[in-house]
């Protein structure tokens, strides 16, 4: 009799340890990356590392500006493409589509989210690159290989489709039918109700979805690396190649230990990513949690 109560108590402590250990991973990762960034931070300040454009590892010069800009370009393009498409899709799925159509559409969006990043990369190389090189770029610039921030942005956009659609759909689903009925019964069309009531109510959720999508896009590595050219200069147009931070880390880990300070520089890049993504994630989770509380209470 006592044994089973003792067992419960011991297991309870054990589970507490497991829980704390796995949650503290967040802290440990941050500290680990920071500790390994110290050597480079001792040499130059955060400010110079982030704003300098000179990347000459062999001379000990590490300027992350081009990589940060590369990340921003690719992410920006992805969001600009994905947000309107996903918002419209979510509205269609939740508000307009018949149950039958919904049953067909939703599984495909889920399937899309299951496709591994490297496959998106392969698809980018096989489909998007030639598309840009032969059909899109010639209208705007004299020559492009296709490997560009635009290619990275398009591939990323497709990758974040499922994330944005599912979050916005969830938010749309929480908007009470009574509210919509109130607008409809005043003679508004469905679209007017969506425009004036639904979207306004869903706005925080849409913002949260975008913030979450941005943080997801920031960290995406392999698919972007395969299509965006990886050239350490600041891009000036969508057809220029770029070199996002994750790609920098992934491409150079091999030499990491053979050039002085290089490992520290790459860990600093990982730290930058970690901090940005941490902030964005916390912001969007807080928005979503508050929204949920408001709508359920």
């Amino acid at each position, binding site marked *: 009799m006592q044994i089973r109560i003792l067992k419960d108590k011991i297991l309870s402590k054990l589970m507490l340890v497991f829980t704390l250990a796995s949650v503290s991973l967040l802290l440990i990762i941050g500290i680990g990356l920071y500790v390994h960034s110290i050597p480079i931070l001792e040499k130059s300040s955060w400010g110079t590392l982030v704003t300098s454009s000179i990347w000459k590892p062999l001379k000990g010069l590490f300027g992350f500006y081009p990589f940060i800009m590369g990340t921003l370009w690719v992410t920006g393009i992805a969001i600009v493409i994905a947000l309107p498409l996903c918002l419209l899709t979510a509205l269609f799925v939740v508000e307009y589509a018949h149950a039958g159509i919904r049953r067909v559409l939703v599984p495909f969006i889920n399937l899309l989210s299951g496709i591994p990043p490297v*496959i998106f990369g392969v698809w980018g190389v096989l489909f998007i690159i030639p598309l840009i090189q032969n059909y899109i770029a010639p209208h705007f610039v004299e020559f492009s290989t296709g490997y560009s921030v635009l290619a990275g942005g398009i591939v990323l956009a497709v990758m974040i489709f499922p994330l944005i659609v599912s979050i916005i759909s969830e938010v749309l689903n929480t908007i009470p039918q009574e509210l919509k009925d109130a607008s409809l019964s005043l003679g508004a069309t469905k679209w007017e109700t969506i425009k004036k009531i639904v979207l306004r109510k869903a706005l925080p959720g849409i913002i949260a979805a975008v913030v979450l999508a941005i943080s997801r896009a920031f960290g995406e590595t392999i698919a972007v690396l395969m299509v965006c050219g990886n050239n350490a200069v600041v891009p000036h147009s969508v057809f220029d190649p770029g070199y996002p931070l994750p790609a920098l*880390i992934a491409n150079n880990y091999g030499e990491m230990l053979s050039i002085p300070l290089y490992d520290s520089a790459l860990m600093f890049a990982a730290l930058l990513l970690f901090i940005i*993504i941490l902030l964005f994630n916390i912001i969007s989770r807080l928005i979503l949690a508050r929204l949920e509380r408001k709508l359920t209470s």
Partner: protein
Amino acid sequence: MRRRKAEELFFKILMLIAAIIVCGSFFLIVGTIFAKGLPYMNLDMLTKTPGGGFYIGKEGGILNAIIGSLYVAGGATILGLLISIPVAIFINMYMNGKKFLSDSLRVAFDVLFGIPSIVYGAFGFLIMVYFGFRASLLGGIIAVTLLVIPILVRTLDEVIGTVPLELRDAALSLGATRWEMAKVVLRQIRPGIFTAILLSFGRAIGDVASVLFTAGFSDNIPTSLHEPAATLPLAIFFQLSSPVEEVQGRGYASALILTIIVLVITVLSEILIKKFSKHKS
């Protein structure tokens, strides 16, 4: 009124187009991979390891990478489950009443879920350097385990949330301890655990950035945890970077293999989720 109707129609068409693009991109991707990969597909790809000169277009297959990926994803999922099940039970059944704390933990796991795999890879690399072991199957499994723990915890957490509170009360009112109640709940959510396993396995088998630093690469099938192991996504990546057309083609075929594996897993988990929610309602 006509203008208003026209506006609605316009946006309806726009929505339809958007939905077609979003869902169509799935077919575009899978279609492209099939079209390019199928011509290079053969039995050797699945049954042989790379022979001499494989990377300049000679004999061999990617069995090493298929097995390596199964090892990494399988090992990480098992290890991840051993950690996540207690965590999910703890959050749901041992923190009674302290809703703020359990919700904070959920947010923390959501945030961990958002950390990109390249960061887990870099961190896994730091752990390996710290403990002084080289890129190996074990290193890969550890890094990927970190990656899947948040997925498993949140999925299990959601599944446990679907168990009616009254069932827990029923067990408790018979004098069960919390652990005995947890066992009843685990029994109830067995299909849900299976879904979590599939989700985690699917994510683990397709991820590159976490194994890039940690698992290494090898043309042989690993025979111990301390040997480096090839993984499918990395094999695809390497073959694609080759200038030899034959090797690139096999990269496409490898991509096809990975796509099929992942699709099967996703479809299975979709079916399970459907079934599961049907039983509940």
